[in-house]
């Protein structure tokens, strides 16, 4: 019991899932060769920020990083959670990047998690906070998470490069997750959405909405896209605009898509890529494009969109010892990576069966029986 045996991993890929699963299962991990061959080796700022977040939420965890930052030793502690926590996510990745592991971590914490996250709320790389509110939370409810406790408030929006957004997140704890049989995708009955603008004219938001509606109107009359115009302190430090759309189906599935347009960050990272400052895409094009993306997601089928596949698989694998069965569209690369990590950490394998008639994939798994060990009983 005295000696710690580390699970050895390589590279910075799937850092979030790895750290999350390691924490949930309390397996110490040793990750080597993190960006070892890059000109700037070592952990990226957002990865360090993620580690800090994990450290904040857990008790007695041990993080060791070597000088170059290419090697990381992580011994997880007990997930405590708690309220009045504040975390600055930095500006290299959006808050969505942190939210994904944070949600699961919060479910298995000892105390209800209430945390303020600061940084970029909307980004084109990560799911936006609007998507979390509209799509991810309903997804959690499927697995027996009480809906009262789930809360995400957007106090101010921030886009890249300078961020400045702030969200308040509350996640209840659960004893365990319940398994679900979720193969009925239903038919899209309504489309909702939110278009936001920060430090730019409100007109851009309306343009996006108009363009998106133009696409949907042929298919569905029930389309309502709200506009969220932020200014001054609520609008963060940079200017930008974006839109997030959700299609709700008759069986209660939510399929989402979102994007944000803003000036790229002027960090050294981006400089290497040689991206010069260019004109932003016109708002009308953004609306049209995103509407198309949403329709494409709907066409793929499945009970969740491709963005949420990873989360869905994680939830299934963390269920009680029952069979879960879900249907997704084409497996996304991120979903596949998640499946592999789940296999490695939790020893849970999915049965994956394609359904040729609809072009979807049906996955079945036997939950790992994860229980909240740190939860207070009295």
């Amino acid at each position, binding site marked *: 019991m005295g000696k710690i045996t580390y699970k050895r991993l390589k590279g910075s890929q799937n850092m979030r899932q790895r750290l999350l699963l390691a924490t*949930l299962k309390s397996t110490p991990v040793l990750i080597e060769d993190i960006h070892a061959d890059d000109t700037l080796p070592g952990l990226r700022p957002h990865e360090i920020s993620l580690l800090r977040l994990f450290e904040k939420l857990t008790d007695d965890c041990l993080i060791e990083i070597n000088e170059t930052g290419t090697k990381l030793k992580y011994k997880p502690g007990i997930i405590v959670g708690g309220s009045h926590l504040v975390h600055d996510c930095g500006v290299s990745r959006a808050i969505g990047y942190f939210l994904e592991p944070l949600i699961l971590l919060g479910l298995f914490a000892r105390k209800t998690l209430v945390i303020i996250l600061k940084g970029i709320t909307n980004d084109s790389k990560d799911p936006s906070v609007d998507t979390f509110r509209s799509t991810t939370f309903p997804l959690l409810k499927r697995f027996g998470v009480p809906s009262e406790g789930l809360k995400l408030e957007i106090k101010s929006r921030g886009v890249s490069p300078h961020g400045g957004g702030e969200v308040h997140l509350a996640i209840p704890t659960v004893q365990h997750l319940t398994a679900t049989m979720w193969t009925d995708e239903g038919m899209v009955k309504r489309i909702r959405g939110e278009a936001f603008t920060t430090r730019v004219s409100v007109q851009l938001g309306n343009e996006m909405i108009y363009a998106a509606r133009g*696409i949907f109107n042929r298919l569905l009359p029930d389309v309502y896209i709200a506009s969220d115009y932020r200014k001054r302190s609520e609008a963060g430090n940079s200017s930008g605009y974006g839109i997030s759309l959700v299609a709700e189906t008759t069986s209660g599935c939510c399929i989402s898509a979102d994007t944000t347009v803003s000036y790229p960050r002027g960090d050294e990272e981006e400089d290497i890529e040689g991206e010069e400052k260019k004109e932003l895409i016109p708002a009308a094009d953004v609306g049209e494009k995103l509407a198309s993306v949403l329709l494409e997601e*709907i066409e793929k089928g499945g009970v969740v969109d491709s963005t949420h596949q990873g989360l869905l698989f994680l939830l299934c694998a963390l269920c009680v010892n*029952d069979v879960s069965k879900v249907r997704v569209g084409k497996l996304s690369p991120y979903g596949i990576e998640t499946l592999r990590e789940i296999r490695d950490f939790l020893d849970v*394998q999915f*049965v994956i069966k394609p359904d040729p008639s609809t072009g979807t994939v049906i996955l079945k798994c036997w939950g790992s*029986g994860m229980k909240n*060990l740190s939860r207070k009983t009295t």
Partner: protein
Amino acid sequence: MAMDSGADGQSHKAHRSRHSGASAKKKTKAKNKDQNSDQKQQNPKAFAFRSNAKAKRLQSRAVEKEQRRLHLPVIDRSYGELPPFVVVVQGPPQVGKSLLIKTLVKHYTKHNLPDVRGPITIVSGKQRRLQFVECPNDINGMIDAAKFADLALLLIDGSYGFEMETFEFLNILQVHGFPKVMGVLTHLDKFKDVKKLKKTKQRLKHRFWTEIYDGAKLFYLSGLIHGKYPKREVHNLARFISVMKFPPLSWRTSHPYLLVDRFEDVTPPERVQMNSKCDRNVTLYGYLRGCNLKKGTKVHIAGVGDFSLAGVTGLSDPCPLPSAAKKKGLRDKEKLFYAPMSGLGDLLYDKDAVYININDQFVQYSKVDEMGGTTNKENKRDVGEDLVKSLQAVKSPIDEKLEKTKISLFSHNDRKRRKAIFGDGVDHSNLKSTDEENEGDEDDDSDNDNDEGENDRSNEDNESCSGSEFSDGDEEDLKSEEDDRSNEDNESCSGSEFSDGDKEDLKSEEDGMGNISKWRASLVERASKKQNINLMQLVYGKSASTSNTSTNEVKDDSENEESDEDEFFKPKGQRAKNSIEGLGGGNINTEDCSKSTKISELKNWKEEEVYESIRDRFVTGDWSKGALRNQMSEAKTEEDDIDGDFEDLETGEKYESHQKDDSSNGGIQKEDDDAIEERRLKKLALRAKFDAHYDGSESPEEETDVQNGGKFHRSQANDSGYYDKLKEEIELQKQINIAELDDLDETTRLEIEGFRTGMYLRLEVHDVPFEMIEYFDPCHPILVGGIGLGEENVGYMQTRLKRHRWHKKVLKTRDPIIVSIGWRRYQTTPVYAIEDQNGRHRMLKYTPEHMHCLAMFWGPLAPPKTGVLAVQNLSNNQLCMKPKKSPFEALN
């Protein structure tokens, strides 16, 4: 007429009731009483509530009582065959424990048991097996026994009264989930005076009841006849055991565990010779209980420590239930028993050797086998089998023969011992040589004897062909392949899929030409099946061993990862290549994005045919088509799940699909259909059983409730809300699980859900301390428990506990105690504390006299609400424990 009238006229002498004397008095008294009670019935109003408030209070109390009676239903997730129930026989020394086991075994199997050592498995009925274990008389042994007992028979010396051991054991049982308990009074023949006997029985019974619950069963064994308990009484006891129900206990249903009934040291002898105190490799055998065991699970061997499993193998059941035939009772041949540690059956355990016993019966049997049986069995017979048979052929006096049959296997090759198992003598496969047993298990399943050698090769074929198939998935392609080749492919893939089809194919091959058209017809189907596997392969890489054995799989993974270290000094390009070859097929430092960010190739959704193509996915489209989309796939994937109850699929549609299958696959499907039908029936039966079980009396407390029967039933009818719904949900989930898992083939199922409960498993554990071998005592059963997620970590725990009322002293902070939580027992130093009014924890130097206090100690974590028991000292002669259940919480 006259006759009739005469018969009528002949009056019998009328009964003349007494008018005076004792009996007359009695009668009048009874009559009066009756009338009184009648009056009660006649005027119920007189006894109704007078005051409104009182009525309300009584009603609320009744409701409260009703609620308190309800317990959250425990989910039983064991879907496999039931493992034998463990009957622990416990009692102070010299009370007749071994004798009771011996007589019970004799009663069930008609065999005399020379010696009770280790668990003894017997088939006690058509549906039920029992495993008798004698509880050793030390605290450690009692704690372990309490953790695996399904039923505890507490033997009590009637002539002496209760002894401390009984109460100690009861207290231990209470903390660890409280399985069923039955008291058995022995030594009642010591009483000469009948009245005194009656009094004693009464007294003991009531004392027993206060300890457990009113109405707990106490059984009386009146005395010995010819050194055995009376047959009739043993029969009655057996009857009591056979009708007993065993409610699931929450700890055990969430953790897999084994009661080891066979234990062997498989360390290479050279290693032991070099250093007799080296760490050993051992194998542990036993029925899997509790919940499913996954390959990667770590286990805790009670008293030894935590180990990861080096290998798990499912073995054929050494003591199987009789095949389901419609007949009453058990045939003698089916009254099996299995007790390798006791020397019953064929294995006899000594300290350093294992002996095989061969009965005449089995000699006979194998001779028959030699003459007739082995035509289509394997032609190459095992050396071991030959040896045994040659031994039988020897005509020598019995004593010599006996000497010869005692083969000390340790001296040759310790792996050989595993071979010659026990006494059912029905299994052919058991006579194979041990080296093959690992693979052999697989054939036990598929009954294929001749693909053993091909196993590896065919697996490879499977991979290669499936790879090509996935690229185009064409029938043509397969046809063009060489016949032999495709045959083998067929075989290999079916081997992993369904054993039935496999057999069929092989048979047709043996016939000569083989029915090529038949398999060709089913190729399309198979291709689609293969595609499934391929998708899994794409995600998970090459499917690991297809065999039943799961040795070292996890280890391999980690080794692969670890072996990367060696590559440290390789040129950069090469390393990159390597990593590409690996699973990830790319950069190990890819960015972590859940969103796929390619918006480039979008269709133009403004075009009409493009957006019309997904019209049916919207409510504005064709609803029937949209519904069909879900239904079709559902019917397709859930073909097998016929469940009258919870899913209203169109049975017509399903039928069609089966019909199609029938035409393509012929006879195979017929068997399948039978199986499906059987499964459906089983499900219905299960459902009925469930209903009966939970509606009827389920817990012993209810027996006491019968007195206020009327009220009780009424209230139950009323409250059938949440509770019933909960039960229904659980049942539904169970049925869904069974249906979904039945869909899968055996190998995948093993990967997905692990080894099922009720399987006879062989666990291989490496590097256990040599003391386990050195001090192994068959009378002291070994418990192997699976460790749940996160339970292998250590940390500080906070528990609530109370000094036991019989413990003489209070306990002092930082005095070491031995704690038993979950499967574990360990010593630790607690710090006692009490929670003050302001919520602060104040440290206590000593535990309070009669109150609960908090104890903080460091140790392996356990989930909240686990029972805890602490003992200060393991010596036998004094009771010094202070158990109390405790809600539990990990601090950090």
